[in-house]
């Protein structure tokens, strides 16, 4: 009887941990990490529950880290003070997606607000946690930093491509 009880408790804990590990695995900055390294990252994260209507962060706040959505839906919008409107919605982040990964590198203010349009569960990974990992497990920390750099360069390349397309379109129009 008692063994059944314990197995239930551990099963729950294990399945929760597995769910988090799976979510972390799907994030680009944690790709290429071994199972042990992922567990190390998981131990450094915090899990938060947000209710419908709550803000995860507000525009202008210092950016300190990233959020990985385990469950629910988050709307990213350009907060001008007049609240969320159709015109200022920038993106919608759902289960398995993540936001704010570049704030792991600097404390630049958040460029938009993150609003929960459903009850949401998220894992957070902050710059302090990354620095802690870098301190304790330099190899793992370097892998994560390298992945953030790679994601940043991909984003930059995409932005350059879009800029080039705009320029081409403008030239085409002028011709």
């Amino acid at each position, binding site marked *: 009887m008692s063994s059944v009880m314990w197995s239930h408790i551990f099963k729950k804990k294990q399945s929760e941990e597995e769910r988090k590990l799976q979510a972390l695995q799907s994030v680009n900055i944690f790709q290429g990490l071994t199972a042990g390294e992922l567990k190390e990252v998981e131990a450094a994260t*915090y899990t938060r529950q947000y209710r419908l209507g709550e803000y995860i962060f507000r525009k202008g706040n210092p950016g*300190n880290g990233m959020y990985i959505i385990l469950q629910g839906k988050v709307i990213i919008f350009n907060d001008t003070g007049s609240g969320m409107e159709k015109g200022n919605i920038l993106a919608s982040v759902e289960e398995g997606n993540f936001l704010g990964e570049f704030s792991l590198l600097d404390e630049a203010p958040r460029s938009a607000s993150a609003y929960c349009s459903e009850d949401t569960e998220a894992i957070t990974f*902050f710059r302090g946690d990354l*620095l802690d990992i870098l*301190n*304790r497990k330099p190899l793992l920390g370097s892998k994560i930093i390298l992945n953030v750099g790679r994601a940043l360069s991909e984003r930059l390349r995409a932005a350059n491509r879009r800029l080039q397309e705009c320029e081409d379109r403008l030239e085409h129009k002028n011709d």
Partner: protein
Amino acid sequence: MTDNQKFIIKLMVFIGSVSAFIYFLPKLSSIIMLLLLSTIFFTIMDPLVDKLERLNISRGISALIIIVLIFFFLGLGIYFLIPHIDAARIGITERLSGTSLRVQLVEWHEALQNHIPFPLDDELPDKITDIVTDFMQHKLPGYLLEISLGIGSFLSSFFMIVFITFFMLKDERSIKKAIIRIVPNKHFELSLNLLYKIQEQLSSYLQGQFLAAMTVGILSSIGLLTINAVFDAKISYAVVIGVWAGLANLIPYVGPVAGAIPAILIVLFSQPDNMFIAIIAIIAMFMVVQFIDNTLVSPFVVGRSVNMHPLTVFLVLIIGGNLMGLLGMMFAVPMAGIIKVTVSEILINAVKYKN
């Protein structure tokens, strides 16, 4: 509920909390003190545990190794210092005992009288001897009893500090998570950021203090031993005085003077042939050590953000002394540093997260 009612409830809760805090503070002061001291040890040892963890040794084992090593060497140091401290106590008591002190004072009185134009009170040596003898015979035993009783509780406190420090080192992340779990979502980022910043600042401040104290202790010991060798200054207990100077260095402004006084007193009482030169050498040596500490060590290892006004240091020392005697005075400034860092980080971050 109207705004006025909400305000009154908030005010009542605030007054109730403050009253409860003031009521329980004396009862909780020893626990708070233990936690603060454990935090100091934790902050100093944490980077060492991190370094061991890098070698793929588990956190728990790393914490255990560092705790055992640090407290072993600390214990070893105390074990070797105790006979010296005891010898110093006996030596000083003998020198201050009635007859020899009176002879000494009469000699100084005559020498001083030859150099000043106005007459000194002839009974001055007797009066000073009476005061000192009365202190040594009647008041000192009481103080020593108080101190030895304090050492009893100090030992039990020491083991509690070791225990708390070990778990702080081992379960650092779990403790942080438990603290953050109770914070509402609205203040989550602010609190987490605050926790990192405070830890970062404290770490550099306390490790810096520790390194500076160690440097001053080692340099003072070497300096005193050198003065002994060069000037035959007969400064007994040079290493004990060096350790004392290092510890006293934790107290800004007062520390450097407090470090030099025992060495000068010992030279005054042992009266070597070149007493005057020896005293000048001691003062010069402590000035050089302070110069090295202030220009080469402290600016690089102790955070500038914790600089305190002399008046603040003075008040903090009085409060520390009142709460825990000499030990309280030693740790008062580092503890005030902890509080200052915490409050300033709260204020800086509160502005950043204002919206």
